[in-house]
């Protein structure tokens, strides 16, 4: 039985360093973005974030110590819990700006969709890795998609389109690492495209409007933000001004877009614009490189993993981070729709931070188990 020595020896330190740098960078940026938001209390957001980070750190350590085999045994409990949370937020949640995304726990606010993402990763990964013998069966693909779609639907109803997209992306990624045949993905893609066409072109002709024009406008505003300079396009334009004005080396304390509130949501969804304005191309590039390192390490762990559960989980985490980073940064630089997906480890938001730190703990657990497996890598077939 490996002891503390082994534990410390087999941690993935590159992953830990990348995560630490991202979290540190993010906290610094939240400080600069919000120090003038509440008069006399420059640290009000940073403090909250630090508390969340401490909780996340403890949780991550615990998770890394536990054998992730544990989650396989309670996978259905985790799944039911995930669905319960996203359902419970609708009646019990707190409404902010027309969206019900948080449950007030008294001391802090809790975002079920972020926690559900973590639980779904664990339960869906377990579900799939338990069914390696059914690889290639359509019903597995179908069932996993339905399992993901149920919580995703409730998250969508909050409404939180971005988080529901992340859940679906996670499910698809896990199917991908599970080994789902290409034909299934091709069929899904065809289905998606035709559903899109039907919803957009055919049904309106039949007098049934599934998607309202303004929703479409909002979704595609990034194509031409100037056309809706005051409404949906405002955020995108202000964000692009912030990013662009950062130029090569950033504006530092002259970062007026952030400090004078031209940039909305500057500590949450648009934190990347804050980074880009303050630190310029250099700062943004450093941040992106850190993410690249993170994804590289996560993918590496997926390859190393002791078993398919570990591979699917690690792959799922890697792609989730990639997805969130691309959609979030893409939105601030005007190449993706504004969907409200946070930037992992950097955006302000306690539950999201804790969930992603737990993901890191999970990656470390997988890494650790792979390194200390009695027969080395014991995946079937070797």
């Amino acid at each position: 039985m490996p002891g503390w020595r082994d534990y410390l020896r087999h941690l993935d330190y590159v992953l830990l360093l990348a995560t630490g740098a991202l979290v540190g960078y993010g906290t610094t940026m939240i400080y600069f973005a919000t120090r003038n938001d509440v008069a006399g209390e420059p640290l009000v957001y940073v403090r909250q974030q630090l508390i969340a980070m401490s909780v996340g750190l403890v949780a991550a350590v615990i998770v890394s110590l536990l054998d992730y085999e544990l989650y396989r045994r309670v996978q259905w409990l985790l799944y039911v819990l995930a669905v319960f949370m996203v359902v419970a937020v609708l009646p019990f949640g707190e409404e902010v700006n027309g969206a019900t995304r948080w449950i007030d726990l008294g001391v802090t606010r809790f975002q079920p969709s972020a926690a559900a993402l973590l639980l779904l990763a664990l339960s869906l990964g377990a579900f799939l890795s338990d069914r390696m013998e059914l690889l290639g069966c359509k019903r597995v693909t179908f069932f996993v998609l339905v399992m993901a779609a149920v919580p995703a639907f409730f998250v969508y109803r909050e409404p939180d389109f971005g988080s529901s997209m992340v859940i679906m992306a996670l499910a698809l990624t896990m199917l991908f690492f599970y080994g789902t045949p290409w034909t299934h993905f091709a069929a899904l893609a065809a289905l998606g495209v035709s559903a899109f066409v039907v919803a957009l072109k055919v049904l309106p002709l039949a007098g049934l409007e599934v998607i309202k024009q303004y929703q479409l406008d909002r979704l595609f505003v990034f194509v031409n933000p100037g056309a809706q300079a005051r409404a949906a396009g405002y955020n995108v334009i202000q964000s692009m001004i912030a990013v662009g004005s950062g130029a090569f080396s950033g504006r530092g304390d002259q970062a007026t877009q952030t400090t004078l509130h031209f940039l909305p949501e500057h500590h949450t969804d648009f934190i990347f614009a804050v980074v880009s304005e303050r630190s310029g191309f250099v700062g943004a590039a450093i941040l992106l490189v850190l993410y690249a390192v993170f994804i590289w390490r996560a993918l590496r762990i997926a390859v190393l993993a002791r078993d398919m559960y570990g591979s699917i989980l690690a792959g799922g985490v890697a792609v989730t981070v990639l997805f969130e980073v691309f959609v979030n940064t893409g939105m601030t630089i005007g190449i993706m729709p504004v969907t409200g997906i946070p930037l992992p480890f950097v955006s302000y938001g306690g539950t999201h931070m804790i969930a992603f730190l737990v993901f890191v703990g999970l990656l470390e657990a997988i890494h650790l188990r792979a390194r200390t497996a009695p027969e080395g890598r014991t995946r079937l077939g070797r």
Partner: protein
Amino acid sequence: MPLLGNDPARRDRPIRTGRRDRPIIQLPSVALRVALVAALAVVLFGVVFFRLWFLQILSGQDFVARANDNRLREVKIVAPRGNIVDRRGEVIVENRPGLAVGLRLMDVPEGRLEDEIVRLARVLKMRPARIRKAIMDHLRPSTMELGDDGEWHSYLTWDAVLEHEITGLDVIIVREDVSERTVSYLKERALSFPGVEVRQNYLRAYPHGTMAAQLLGHLADISAEQLREKHFKGYSAGDVVGVEGLEKTYDRWLRGRDGVARIEVDAFSRPKQSDPVGGRLPEPGHTLVTTLDAKVQEAAERALRTGISLAHRDGKVEANGGAAVVLDARNGDVLAMANYPTYDPGVWVGGISEKKYRRLFVQKGNNYPQLNRAIMETKAVGSTFKVVDAVAGLEEGVISPVEAFFCNGSYKPPVATDKTVFGCWSSAGHGSLSLVDAITQSCDVYFYNVGYRFYAAKGSPLQEWAKRLGMGRPTGIDIEGEAAGRVPTPEWRQKYFRSEVDKLWTPGNSINLSIGQGDLEATPLQLAVTYAAIANGGRVVTPHLGLRIVDAAGQTVRDLHPAKARKVDIAPSTLDLVRQGLYKAANSPTGTSAHVFALYGQPVAGKTGTAEVYDATRSGYVDYAWYASYAPAHDPRYVVVVMIEKGGHGGTVAAPAARVIYDALFHLHSGELTTGSARTD
């Protein structure tokens, strides 16, 4: 289950294939899928990097500029406008500090704007609609966006303003020139008027009251039409500009340069610090020195009142308007340009209500005091035109100085289309007269003969001379609205009339023209220019009101040189004869205005005129009294022209009025002329 370490039971279960030779299959390669994800990651990161490169490195400076546009607001500091003074520096238009009430939309709580406007309007005694309009007009230029059709549209709506979607930091002036009392009322109730602010600004003031009101013009917010005018090129919406008159012509000099305070604001347009980040101080406007002489101008306006009261005394009770022009005969300086009736230009200050405007300027009963009759009203000039006959006749060789015509009180042209007989004003007749005497006594029959000879002459030489001497086209004075007048020619008749009979130019037309009647029309200013040309030896001057531009220190910034006088070749002998006639008309016992000027302290040369003008309201002709003159007769310096609408005889009404002006010009005190005067034209 051990916490640390590996669960030995944990193995991926074998996959059953049903094939005996290979009961366990190879799992799909995780490595391949990882490679695919890695490739996707490279592509996505590449896209983000490329985009960041484009935004930050290639367009970075543009975005810095846009970020600065966001955070820096420019607030205009209005420059005090320059004064308008007379040639001696006497102030005609100046600034006085005034109080303006404005509204800062930012500070009006959401949902209270409508109510506040209604209450504010009540306090300011104006209609709420005017406040709304002021707000909308102010916001419109800053709410333009480029539409899909390539045109600029304003997305401004009143609802958006009410709902605080469109708001602003600037104080929108809703009412200028608010009384001290109203301001203190508002200040005492500041809490119930959030967002209402009082500003000190400059307003136009007129120390001489109604004097020269028609020449000055007034100020107003620039209109959309004016923005397109060439005169206002480079101006922007929201500018206050001179409208009409001197304020308009010399606006660029008077307005100065507005200053700008650059203020850093946040996304809600709240200023971050009280000190401006930068900007520019306003430069006050320059002073316009005019050619006017306040004393002469006042005298000219008094003269009109005198003339009208003389007309009333003479039974012409309808006389209710007039104009007088005083020119420097040598260079066209307008020493005075007076109009009756007049009004207080202070009514424009702070904006005039539609109702008040209509009551003052549109209602017929006031006889249109805004009208600058001296340059806008064209009427027949009567006998004052005879000097043109004389110059033209002599220069064209139609008459000779010694040739005499016999006047028996009436004239019948040798060849005529009808049996019209043209009467002389003196029905008894003047007997045999040569040119000088004809001018002196203003004998109509003499000039009927001249007119008929011109009818027989080739072309239209008489009309050519009238035009050459300044009639039939604007004189080019430096204020807008000048009328061209009309010198009727056979060609004009062809174009102007419809019926074939009317199109014909008859001897009667030439005969009527010779005594300044018929279709001839000129402004008092044009007549003054014509007389100035006779007085100064044939130079047709361009009358002007602007003399020079002076800065705050009194230094001349620019001399306003008018267009050069146009020289008309007139033989000295011709001029000499005409001048003799004009001198005798004012001085010899038989002269038409001798009763006014014969014993006057300065030698005046002048011609009376009694023009018959068709009056539509009476369906008949009424007499307009004219007097056109210059003095001193032997070394002419001043030209004085007076016209009294419906005033009757020139000698009875207009000439005495002119004498009031000469009193001021020569510092004489001749007293009011009360004697019953000769019935001449």
